[in-house]
């Protein structure tokens, strides 16, 4: 019914989607279902469609509709987390997405542009690779005088490599986080370098589209450059990059860390944060569920003495390419959360550039943990 390649499709993920007992536990926790309210948007609904595929007549319109549904998913992993029946939903979504793009590339032309941009200029914005260390460097060079010398290949080796990722390299909205990150590293006298134009996209967007070959090319390049630096640690502020670097790069002799892990390990105690505003903490899905980094962000906040309200472990709506595939739905998810969890009266602390974009885009105040940390470190330094 839904595609012409039923048999192949079944073979690939049968043992996992057939395990679904349709109990419905993954339904109400799914941000897409929460926003849309109908079964077809729920993880159970989508798995059910796979289970009964053979009962439904071949129909190109149905197939098209199903493919669209596959990309109405924030890939937040909450469904996988809640499922007690060993259904690896995230894996299924990955496989099915790859299949969908292969079956009907014309329906994903907008993703084709992204794929091309990654192939040609190695970033998601289609900008020149040389610009990767231009915007933020112009902005921050005066405040952090040695910063240019920290950029590869001018800096050749260092103990720590900072992997910025596309969002942080190109978006003006991320400069405050970068400032805080570099200043913290300087204050703590960390020997670090930034990859600059030699950093390619980590491959995460291609992974989300199921383009394994494209993602592999990007990985191979990044891995080679990172090896050259002789670094022992690789840190990133982006949980999407982290998930790739940790799970798909197979580094040996290099420890891959989220910046909250790096600073939490480095600092036993921290000068208290002078808090004047109400804070909430939002766990980035990819950090919390996919990379399993749960304690370090909280530990850092505790060391700084920051008081905050925990938010529901729900998605900001910005993951899984949803901002591209259905921006209205992506915004709706955030707006529903903002109303339900009364976010407009607080500053949402988080630790992910994509969540930051999503929060700012919906007119909410947000700070990365590193922005709080840098004020504590500067205070201590006097």
């Amino acid at each position, binding site marked *: 019914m839904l595609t012409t390649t039923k048999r192949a499709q079944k073979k690939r993920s049968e043992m996992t989607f057939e395990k679904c007992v349709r109990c419905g536990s993954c339904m*109400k926790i799914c941000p897409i279902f929460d926003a849309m309210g109908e079964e077809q948007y729920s993880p159970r609904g989508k798995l*059910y469609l796979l289970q009964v595929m053979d009962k439904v007549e071949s129909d190109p319109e149905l197939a098209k509709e199903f493919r669209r549904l596959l990309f109405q998913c924030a890939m937040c992993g909450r469904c996988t987390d809640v499922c007690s029946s060993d259904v690896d939903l995230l894996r299924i979504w990955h496989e099915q997405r790859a299949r969908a793009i292969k079956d009907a590339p014309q329906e994903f032309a907008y993703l084709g542009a992204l794929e091309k941009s990654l192939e040609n200029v190695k970033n998601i914005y289609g900008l020149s690779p040389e610009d990767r260390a231009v915007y933020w460097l112009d902005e921050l060079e005066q405040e952090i005088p040695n910063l240019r010398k920290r950029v590869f290949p001018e800096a050749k080796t260092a103990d720590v490599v900072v992997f910025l990722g596309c969002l942080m390299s190109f978006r003006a909205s991320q400069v405050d986080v970068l400032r805080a990150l570099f200043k913290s590293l300087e204050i703590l006298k960390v020997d670090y370098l930034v990859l600059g134009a030699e950093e390619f996209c980590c491959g995460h967007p291609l992974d989300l589209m199921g383009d394994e070959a494209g993602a592999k090319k990007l990985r191979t390049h990044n891995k080679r450059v990172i090896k050259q630096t002789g670094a022992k640690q690789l840190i990133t502020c982006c949980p999407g990059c982290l998930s790739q670097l940790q799970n798909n790069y197979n580094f040996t002799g290099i420890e891959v860390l989220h910046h909250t892990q790096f600073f939490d390990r480095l600092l036993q105690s921290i000068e208290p944060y002078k808090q004047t505003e109400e804070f909430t903490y939002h766990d980035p899905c990819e950090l919390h569920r996919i990379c399993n980094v749960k304690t370090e962000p909280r530990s850092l906040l505790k060391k700084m003495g920051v008081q905050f309200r925990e938010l529901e472990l729900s998605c900001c709506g910005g993951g899984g390419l949803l901002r591209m595939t259905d921006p209205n739905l992506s915004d709706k998810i955030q707006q529903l959360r903002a109303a339900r969890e009364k976010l407009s009266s607080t500053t949402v602390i988080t630790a992910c550039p994509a969540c930051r974009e999503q929060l700012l885009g919906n007119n909410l105040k947000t700070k990365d943990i590193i922005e709080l940390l840098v004020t504590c470190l500067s205070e201590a330094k006097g």
Partner: protein
Amino acid sequence: MNIRDIVIGANASIYYRMDFRKIKGVFYPRTDEQVQEAVAWARERGYDVTPKGGGSGLSGACTGGDRDRVMISSLQMKEVLSVSKDQGYVDVQPGATPDEINVLLAPLKMKFYVTPSSRDVATVGGMLNTDGGGNDAWVNGTMRDNTLRAKIVLYDGRLITVEQKSVKSSDSQLESDLNSVGMTINDVASSHGTLGFVTELRLSIRPIVQERLIGGLAEYRDSDELGSTLRRMIETKSPVKYGEAIVAAHPDVRGELRPPELILEFPEDYASNLENITHFRKLTAEELAKLKDVRLKLPKRNPKKGLQLALFEDYGFYGDGLKMIQEGVAGIDLLLKKHGFVPFAKYGHAPSKWYLGNNAAAYGIILHSREIRPEGITKAEVFKAVMELVDLCEEAGITPKPEHKWPYNDKVKNDRIQQIREVIGEGFNTFVLQSDCNVVLSSMV
């Protein structure tokens, strides 16, 4: 056919592979008026109406069988409309789940006490229509005990409010007719969507009692010893607040479980009385929480190899039946093995309470069962096994909980529903009452 119509078939029972062409429309109303409009749409075209909640029911009743039908989902009717702490009730739309209701009640230190294991997805509308209960149904009752009234849209579009002892309607003739047949909330309980669409419920809520509870684990030589313990607990009106029996568990999911065993939570000062009834080991809070979690997930776990399914959800042992759990389970397992199934897990709320088709309360254990599906088995063979299990239960005096499934198998309940439908009209979930209901379901295995 469109995806919206197909996907409405998703449900937790083994009956999920239906003829999707017979689904003529799917509605997700938000208000009573929208429910009435959806019902009118179906009525004008001569279609049956099947209400659906969370689709967690295990009887297959929320599928609507094989009728040309319109599906009405309550998933967008999930508002808590009002709370009266003083009078102890909450008015809710039918699509709210116990978890959703209790999140809102928590700041008021109040609770809705019917919390089945499926409380994250089961809707109160669905729970009333299956008379669901939690592992504390023994002390807190089932859905019918906790529903003060239910508003229902009938097939002809009229509204009735069914209370615990009577019915109200703005149509005085209808009100009088229904009261003369003595319709009450007992009739709606476990009616499986055959009477109408429940659009609002008034549910009892009570304060959250700050009682010091402790956990205990009792292990038994065999299931009859467990059954005797349950009998004594029932006779002495034991105040256990949480009781779960694990009667059997396959090595793939057994972990630290040592069935047959009973996981209990009870007031601390009851411990010495309980010792007179059964030996047990006290559990730390962490141990209890861990065991509760294991039990909660048991219905959903899969074996390392192959897939599990629930052939026949409820084996009810009560009264003298509690003396023969061992024999009953052995008979069931023999039959399962004969058909190539591997027994996977048997567990259930115990001591528990449920109602029989004649509205009499039964006290005992409702045993849920999961088995590993043999590879390559046909749906006809699966259904044959189900039907043999039904026969075996009838012969052995094991009573399937009629509220939960097989309403068509309980003659008393079936006749009563037919009697009421003679007054209110037919058109809601008719397949459940058809004589060939089994055949219909078997086609959907």
